[in-house]
């Protein structure tokens, strides 16, 4: 008997007696108020992230210093031309020297301050973790109220890889001291920039 057959046989034999129906999950009222942008920003900041307003002439005014100090900028967005073309990258290891990666989020979540990416936005998935800093463009109109709403989105059933980022990489494994940039990005800044109209 294969392992698979043995496991299934045991599971069927040991099925607990009784009725255990799958419950209907109600849609709970969002914890956030009506100003989703403000709520999103507040929660993101509490999770160690940063929020920047786009400048009148320069979308990236709020992170211009960060970009200027960078040697390698990987941009996945049409709003910025970086120094590295992500579409030309053949191996994930090749994005290891990226200082700043710039990507656009599919949507944000106000309840938590999270943003969603799939492989389509990241182009090279690993860049969101090997880069030192992450700059995220987010259209304020793409902010959902809560996690429940997010999990009704089609991306989770379609994407090969989908990930919610909530602030930068963090740990407090040493005496509870909060560290940003534990393994991944040291900072995550969201720029509230609407999508370019096609």
């Amino acid at each position, binding site marked *: 008997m294969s392992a698979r057959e043995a*496991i299934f046989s045991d599971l069927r034999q*040991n099925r*607990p007696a009784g009725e255990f129906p799958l419950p209907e999950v109600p849609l709970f009222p969002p914890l956030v108020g009506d100003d989703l942008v403000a709520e999103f920003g507040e929660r993101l900041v509490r999770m160690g992230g940063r929020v920047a307003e786009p400048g009148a002439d320069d979308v990236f005014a709020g992170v211009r210093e960060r970009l200027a100090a960078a040697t390698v900028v990987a941009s996945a967005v049409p709003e910025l031309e970086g120094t590295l073309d992500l579409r030309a990258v053949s191996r994930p*290891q090749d994005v290891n020297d990226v200082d700043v990666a710039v990507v656009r989020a599919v949507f944000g979540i106000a309840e938590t301050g999270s943003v969603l990416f799939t492989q389509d936005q990241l182009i090279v*998935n690993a860049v969101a973790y090997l880069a030192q800093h992450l700059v995220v463009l987010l259209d304020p109109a793409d902010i959902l109220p809560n996690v429940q709403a997010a999990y009704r989105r089609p991306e989770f059933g379609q994407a090969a890889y989908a990930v919610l980022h909530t602030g930068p990489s963090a740990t*407090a494994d040493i005496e509870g*001291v909060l560290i940003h940039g534990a393994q991944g990005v040291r900072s995550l800044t969201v720029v509230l920039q609407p999508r370019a109209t096609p």
Partner: protein
Amino acid sequence: MSAEDLHPREREGVVNPVVRAATDESERGQDGRRLDHAEGTSKPIKAPPVREPQPRGAKIRGDRPIDQAEAAERFLAAPLHAAAHDERLWDLRKKRDAAAFGIPEWEELRELASQIKTHTLSHLDLYLEQFEAAAKANGVHVHWARDGAEHNRIVLGILRDHGARTIVKSKSMLTEECGFRHFMAGEGIEIIETDLGERIQQLDDEEPSHIVAPAVHKTRLDVAEVFARTLGTDPDNDDAHYLAESQRETTRPHILNADAGMTGCNFAIAETGTVVTCTNEGNADLSGNVPKLQIHSIGIEKLIPRIEHLGVFIRLLSRSALGSPITQYTSHFRKPRAGTEMHMVLVDNGRSARLGMEEFWTSLKCIRCGACMNTCPVYRRSGGLSYGATYAGPIGLIIDPTFNKRKYSTLPFSSTMNGSCTNVCPVKINIHEQIFAWRKVLAEEHQIPLLKQGMMKAAGAVLARPAAYRAAIGAADSALKVLPRFAVYNPLNTWGKKREMPDAPRQSFHAWYKENRMKDGAK
């Protein structure tokens, strides 16, 4: 009482004042406020920089029953470690409370999560079939392992097929269960743990002590010592930022050069074949997105039916574990990247057997949040290593005996059965009641010490005979010697070692009643 009363930042007294730091070295957010997301503490909890040797875990001698009490005593004999450990985990409990009280539907969420899990577990064969079909349709290789050893052999086989010699992995309690690292070391495969706490423990050749914060029992001095010894860092620099940065720098090359990446699984979604991982460091994402070969180890009880159910579990997990609304990274792996291979190994290792245990199968609902450990007053004062098992604390007490009844027969007694664990469990496992039930099973199967069972038999005999009982407690001076026999009929008189003995009253209630209230010996 409102949520305000439970805010962890309130200026309350702490039980272990010795560990409060004078200065605050935490991160500040963009708005200047002190941050406490991820596992960050809500107030500074810093052990004083006095070198105190780190207390080590339970003595493990083959299958002999673990003496958890002995290991706990040694832990408490390192007071700085013990105080910092207790205060730190209590802080996580307080953060959990604040998060729970911030959601009006919190108790309803717990009930929903519990029901989704019991439904899935009672139909686990169907959901596993659905998961496997979806995963295969996604181009994923699906494997089945009956036990930990088979899991290890399967993974080894995958690695050998690809000529892989090095793996980076993110945290997985399942792989701890399987003894994965030790097995692979014996096969010449190099494993690098990428979670900071796991890495510290790996470098120190010690097991993780807590399922969410694996090195929570270590002070920064301990970590500095380990890193100096193994990574060549400055032994006199115990700054947490320096140490974390050192780990980041030395681990990065491993990540870049690894032949394979491995993760565990928090949730496996049947309808889409998705593996969900929740981390704060992003190390599961590194492990899963850099190497060309990707392996996910999945305990079969991790299944949940639909993506929409994540709307319940993701809202509960991090709030229960750390008090944060969500982990920094919530990752959903479904299909391999172009030109790479993805493997999923579904592991039983006693879970299907546990499903058949009428009193204990609901322990399979566990989503590994660690909230029970944070609230357990015994765990906080004993340290996770005192349990000598992969799973420590309350959840450990009820599942470890299923892995090895004899070895872990002592663990269900390392509890006061106060019930706090049951109340913080996001999936409503009745942990303290299962602890009580295990004691009955173990006593009936004579897995408890002969002396203890003998004492209980003797006590039961006296307490069942009214006259004998009254005689035993009647005399003031013999009351302490005889009743409760189980308390002081102990060569070491453990009560008296740490506490003053109760005063012997002039007369028992029985005697008072007879003297004052009974007429002609009857009432």
